């Protein structure tokens, strides 16, 4: 059935493409049709069918010659945060209206070199600042999943368009980025797999910067195997990113043996938050039991500075953002405000940034400005960086004690209705990242795996955190958990 090609996993599509059962062009057409018909989800911000068809044709030529890497002919959605040459790339911000980069991000270039096909650019929170995809200049993304009351739910954020597009079978997989949880939280809300690699694994070059010491790109896929395949193609050393690690990229897929006998899995007691919903607690216990049954040794561990991770993050990330976003000044690219008679350059900056940045971005840029300003730098920014050292030390200690991976919930709840947080103060929204943000601060790899449904039929995810640079081992634990959980549910199509 041609219409179901868009529902394939990368691994299944790869095998069919190589066996010449299907062509990349057929696969791409199926995804383009699905993307075209997905307007109600608002996952796509820009469609690029011409590029997709051209790339699919080139992929078919490679496949015909037998020169076909795993990603060859695989149709992807690309988060709008990635600069793609000649294609609108505006980080879901009005301040980048009309911006068409003259260059290609390293990660997308790596994927295209491997033969991948770009279907279009995916919606997201503005500048990746948000946990519900409600701060985008393109409007909200709607989660393909619906609860029993039928309300429109958030797909999470900031990679909400990516999560919705993968969960809704609009593409085979998508790129995401994760600064505080922006891959793992939406993956959990949409019942898909999302990986944030070790800081430095994927080049940041050509990805619109939010908080440079925290940002990492990663794959958002239908299962763990696909995440392994796509991650191998995305990462690698890049001289254009000085924080990109120069080390070989393993074949992550080859590490998926499903054998975790003798591995030690840590359960951090500080992640057992007051008021944690019982469905999240049960999911976590079930996941622990699955890993134990698979032969892992389960140990209780302590990460004593966990509760300070979010406050440290909400100093460090806005501080870095205020610096990174200083470049949006109406001079070199994007929006420039209409000026009045007599306006000088300062008025141009101020009006341009007031018009171009949304409320949440403005708030974070100003918080960052404040914590970096004279007299407050030590009290806020330096203190937060010291706490960050302690948070990383917590992880270093448990890894030195022999822990191979850490199991936690991915999010404190299932997907919530769009608009539900409209009247909440900003900190309430920030609490979405309570389980994921530690991983960014410590630079570790983390993966969210769908592990069950709640009473309303919505997906819930578990997170596994690994040792730095040991994504291969981490993905094998995730693969084992995935197989034990047996999550196969899909959202019913309503859009």
């Amino acid at each position, binding site marked *: 059935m041609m219409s179901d090609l868009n529902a394939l996993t990368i691994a299944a599509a790869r095998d069919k493409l190589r066996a010449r059962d299907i062509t990349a062009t057929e696969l791409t057409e199926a995804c383009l049709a699905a993307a075209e018909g997905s307007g109600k989800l608002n996952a796509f911000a820009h469609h690029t069918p011409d590029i997709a068809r051209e790339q699919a044709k080139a992929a078919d030529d490679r496949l015909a010659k037998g020169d076909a890497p795993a990603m060859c002919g695989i149709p992807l959605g690309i988060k709008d945060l990635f600069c793609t040459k000649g294609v609108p790339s505006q980080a879901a911000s009005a301040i980048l209206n009309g911006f068409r980069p003259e260059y290609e991000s390293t990660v997308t270039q790596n994927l295209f070199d491997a033969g991948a096909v770009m279907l279009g650019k995916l919606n997201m929170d503005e500048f990746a600042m948000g946990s519900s995809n409600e701060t985008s200049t393109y409007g909200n993304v709607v989660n393909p999943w619906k609860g029993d009351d039928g309300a429109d739910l958030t797909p999470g954020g900031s990679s909400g368009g990516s999560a919705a597009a993968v969960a809704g079978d609009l593409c085979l997989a998508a790129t995401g980025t994760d600064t505080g949880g922006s891959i793992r939280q939406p993956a959990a809300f949409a019942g898909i797999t999302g990986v944030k690699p070790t800081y430095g694994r994927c080049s940041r070059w050509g990805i619109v910067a939010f908080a440079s010491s925290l940002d990492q790109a990663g794959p958002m896929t239908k299962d763990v195997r696909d995440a392994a395949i796509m991650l191998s193609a995305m990462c690698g050393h890049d001289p254009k990113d000085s924080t990109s690690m120069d080390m070989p990229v393993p074949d992550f897929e080859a590490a998926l043996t499903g054998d975790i006998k003798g591995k030690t899995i840590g359960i951090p007691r500080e992640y057992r938050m007051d008021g944690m919903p019982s469905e999240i607690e049960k999911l976590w216990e079930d996941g622990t039991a699955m890993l134990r049954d698979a032969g892992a040794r389960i140990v209780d561990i302590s990460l004593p500075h966990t509760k300070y991770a979010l406050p440290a993050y909400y100093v460090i990330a806005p501080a870095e953002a205020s610096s990174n976003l200083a470049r949006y000044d109406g001079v070199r690219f*994007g929006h420039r405000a209409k000026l009045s008679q007599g306006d000088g350059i300062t008025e141009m900056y*101020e009006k341009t940034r007031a018009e171009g940045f949304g409320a949440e971005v403005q708030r974070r840029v100003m918080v960052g400005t404040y914590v970096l300003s004279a007299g407050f730098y030590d009290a806020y920014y330096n203190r937060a960086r010291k706490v*960050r050292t302690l948070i990383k030390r917590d992880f270093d200690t448990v890894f030195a004690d022999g822990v191979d991976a850490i199991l936690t919930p991915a999010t404190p709840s299932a997907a919530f209705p769009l608009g539900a947080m409209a009247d909440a103060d900003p900190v309430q929204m920030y609490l979405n990242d309570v389980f994921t943000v530690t991983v960014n601060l410590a630079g570790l790899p983390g993966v969210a795996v769908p592990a069950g449904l709640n009473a309303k039929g919505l997906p819930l995810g578990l997170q596994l955190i690994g040792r730095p640079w040991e994504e291969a081992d981490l993905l094998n634990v995730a693969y084992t958990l995935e197989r034990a959980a047996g999550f196969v549910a899909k959202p019913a199509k309503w859009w």
Partner: protein
Amino acid sequence: MSIDTETAARVAKLARIRVEPDALPALADAFNTILGFVEQLNEVDVDGVEPMTGVTPMRLKRRDDVVTDGAQQKAVLANAPDAREGFFAVPKVVE
């Protein structure tokens, strides 16, 4: 510490974001909520702890000191809101 509207106005000015006077009280409130939340960091004993500069210990790579890129004026100016005669154009900067 509490942020008043005057401080909020000063921060907006430093950030080069125009905030209308009637929006300042709400902005100050938001700052106070966020900064109140991060106050918790004061509970942590950070004596003798080095502030983190980079999460992964690594030596910055060196390369030969040669020109690797350039001569791309057209590409650099392609997205400018106002480019004239090979330059970015902006309102008058000096009187």
